[in-house]
């Protein structure tokens, strides 16, 4: 620690150059913080603990293809299945397409299967008893300033009503919370009653989007899934049953392999960063050869000089990198509410850990050659300017 002022002084010997370099390190790690948070959000979708005892059954062809309601009783009869709920994507729009949030018609017992949501019992009862009732997550209610008793009109994009109207108006009867603050990204969603949906819609009546099964024992998931899919085997509505996590993963991977994209972008960014900062360090040490020679003259060991230069390069990257991820930590929560589910509520510890590891890695990498050069310099030659 007593050498810190030496390292610091060396680093800021050329203020402008160092500040520019730090700015580019900052930009790279800001991007890293943002992208890795996106990657986190996507992998969350496939790794939630909350859904381990749930499975989803949908059409083998696509999750947009519906299935007959008659399957309900047969799935309920499969051993290992504790309870079955069902739902359908509605795709309604509130006022403006920019206000997008998922909204689904759900069976009366739906919330019983989703224990990760907390809702007061009287509100849940009101939901089951109100034909046009709907419930929303707390963060969604907050975003639009909704209170219980409000009427929420949604414009249908897929399902017009029998009378041809595209406006479905729901009565807000309950607001639920995610029990785990980490799952707050599951809050921005609206559920309404299946009965109202199925009776009022113009087409598709009696067809179901997907079934959700709660298992008695999560370890039996594979057998139960096979048994459920066997029911519809060789029919015109073959199904595919998988754990909710696997479903979420495949849902997400429909769009893209986020991990691969993030990895690709960051590799390019860090490669450029290494060239740039490596050049800065090489230049910085080249200019300081006589000073390093003086340190050695005074009695600094070879290893001491090596350490000083490496400390300098690591500090250079750490300064920019920590500020960069720190900035991401400010931006991510601020943006999180605007881009539902695309970003987690903050920069996770695993992003910090990977980031700091990268900072040390890059710092040591770019400092290595200059440090060796400093370490190996011959005092008498350096002093004579040779």
């Amino acid at each position, binding site marked *: 620690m*007593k*050498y810190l*002022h*030496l390292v610091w*002084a*060396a680093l*800021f*010997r050329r203020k402008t150059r160092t500040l520019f370099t730090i700015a580019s390190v900052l930009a790279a790690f800001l991007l890293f913080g943002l992208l890795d948070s996106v990657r986190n959000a996507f992998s969350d979708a496939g790794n939630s603990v909350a859904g381990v005892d749930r499975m989803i059954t949908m059409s083998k062809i696509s999750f947009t293809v519906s299935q007959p309601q008659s399957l309900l009783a047969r799935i309920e009869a499969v051993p290992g299945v504790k309870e079955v709920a069902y739902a359908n994507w509605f795709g309604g729009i509130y006022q403006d397409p920019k206000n997008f949030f998922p909204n689904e018609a759900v069976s009366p017992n739906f919330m019983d299967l989703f224990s990760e949501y907390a809702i007061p019992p009287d509100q849940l009862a009101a939901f089951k008893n109100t034909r046009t009732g709907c419930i929303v997550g707390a963060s969604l209610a907050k975003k639009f300033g909704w209170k219980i008793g409000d009427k929420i009109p949604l414009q249908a994009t897929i399902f017009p009503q029998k009378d041809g109207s595209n406006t479905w108006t729901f009565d807000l009867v309950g607001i639920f919370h995610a029990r785990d603050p980490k799952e707050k990204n599951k809050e921005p969603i609206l559920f309404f009653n299946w009965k109202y949906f199925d009776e009022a819609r113009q087409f598709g009546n009696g067809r179901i989007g997907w079934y959700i099964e709660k298992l008695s024992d999560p370890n039996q998931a594979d057998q139960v899934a096979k048994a459920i899919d066997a029911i519809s085997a060789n029919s015109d509505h073959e199904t595919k049953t998988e754990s909710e996590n696997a479903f979420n993963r495949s849902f997400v991977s429909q769009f893209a392999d986020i991990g691969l994209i993030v990895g690709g972008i960051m590799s390019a960014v860090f490669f450029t960063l290494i060239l740039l900062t490596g050049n800065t360090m090489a230049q910085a040490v080249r200019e300081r050869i*006589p*000073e390093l020679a*003086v*340190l*050695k*003259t*005074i*009695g*600094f*060991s*070879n290893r001491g000089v090596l350490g000083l230069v490496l400390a300098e390069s690591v500090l250079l990257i750490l300064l920019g990198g920590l500020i960069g991820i720190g900035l991401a930590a400010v931006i991510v929560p601020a943006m999180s509410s605007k881009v539902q589910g695309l970003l987690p509520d903050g920069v996770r510890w695993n992003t910090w850990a990977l980031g700091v590891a990268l900072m040390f890695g890059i710092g040591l990498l770019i400092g290595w050659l200059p440090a060796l050069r400093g370490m190996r310099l011959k*005092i*008498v030659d350096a*002093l*004579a300017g040779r």
Partner: protein
Amino acid sequence: MSNLVEIRNVSKVYERGKQKVEVLHHVDLGIAQGDFVALMGPSGSGKTTLLNLIGGLDSPSDGSIAVGGARIDNLGQGALAKWRAANVGFVFQFYNLLPMLSAQKNVELPLLLTKLSAAQRKKNASVALQLVGLADRATHKPTELSGGQQQRVAIARAIVSDPSLLVCDEPTGDLDRQSAEDVLALLQTLNREHGKTIVMVTHDPKAAEYARQTLHLDKGTLVEQATHA
């Protein structure tokens, strides 16, 4: 007086590619404890080379060098670095201060290698700055000081860890007459009142007059010895 520095039959050969250049030829030299030696000679005669050997910055190709009774010609780089930190102070023509550090911090540099506490380092550096008459410039950066002042800071740095030997390579080579005289008077005080043994390379006969004796080097050989008052 016993000899602090004993040089026996020392040669130095530089290899430039295949070519070998012998810069010092069988030099024998003893420097007494408490002496102040001026080393003169034409450019390229090997003065800096000899001084670097005495200060343990380089090792001879042949012969032996002992300082304070301990052989240094066969020490490895690491041991030599430790030895320099404890036993020698260096003063160069171009001061060689670290430009980003204040005078105080420059003087403290050698003390970083000791076990002294931060408070002790600070105190010792202040004492050294006081000794060279620059206590009031402790917070100044080198660029905020005149050449003479920078050289005095460099001298403070050379003596701060209290070495017995000071080696100075043309310490006044870049200074005006007045600053040079200040620096030389300072070196003389360090020699006379603080008992430092000093070896100083110089081109300036007036500077050499401050020393107790002058040695002449020519083409790698000591040619004559003249003793002053």
